[in-house]
């Protein structure tokens, strides 16, 4: 492998912080992505110690000079995985919820892609639990909850997430 190729396995990224614990990076196609870890203290019962560590994982495009959907780019996936790790290094007890964007009804496709991404990059450090929620419009929305394997609250977190998920089936 050439040196340039070795160095380009992922893009460099910067932590912005701000309200949503944002990161930014720019691809070789000059697309600028923002990765957010938006606090979701309402996800769990607020009396639970882990409630304050819960975040919604959001991938947003800040700038896209190419018209249409950004092209497939393996470096983007690797960069997002590195950002994910970086955030969990900052806050070890992080609980992330990822819900698949559903405004264009492609949520199931996104869910499959997200699963492939997770399997490729979790490196046995993370645990994921999946469910499908139904919103008030009746739309089915696949969602995943991710924690580090060594999260001290993992049993309670998964139990409570299953309870939340079950409450949507009633």
């Amino acid at each position, binding site marked *: 492998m050439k*040196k*340039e190729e070795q*160095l380009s396995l992922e893009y*460099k*990224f*910067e*932590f*912005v*912080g*701000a309200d*949503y614990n*944002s990161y*930014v*990076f*720019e691809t070789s196609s000059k697309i*600028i992505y*923002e990765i*957010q870890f*938006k606090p*979701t203290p*309402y*996800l769990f019962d607020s009396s639970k110690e882990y409630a304050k560590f819960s975040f*919604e994982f*959001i991938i*947003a*495009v*800040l*700038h896209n000079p190419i018209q249409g959907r950004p092209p497939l780019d393996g470096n983007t996936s690797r960069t997002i995985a590195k950002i994910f790790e970086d955030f969990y290094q900052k806050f070890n007890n992080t609980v992330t*919820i990822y*819900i698949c*964007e*559903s*405004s264009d009804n492609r949520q199931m496709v996104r869910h499959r892609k997200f699963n492939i991404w997770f399997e490729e990059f979790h490196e046995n450090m993370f645990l994921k639990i999946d469910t499908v*929620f*139904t*919103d*008030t419009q009746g739309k089915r*929305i696949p*969602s995943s909850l991710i924690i580090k394997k060594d999260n001290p609250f993992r049993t309670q977190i998964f139990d409570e997430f299953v309870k*939340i998920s079950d409450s*949507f089936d009633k």
Partner: protein
Amino acid sequence: MEKSIIDRLVEDKKQAIKDAKKNLQKPEYQAALQRLRLRNEERRTAIVGV
């Protein structure tokens, strides 16, 4: 009717994606992008210099 957790998550996500383009104009984002471009430039220089 009280919003369900999933409705809040969906709305928050939609709003965040909608607001993303505006974030680019914020000084903290501009500063981060400037740092990022500087680091990318340093990397390119390092590759050329090898």
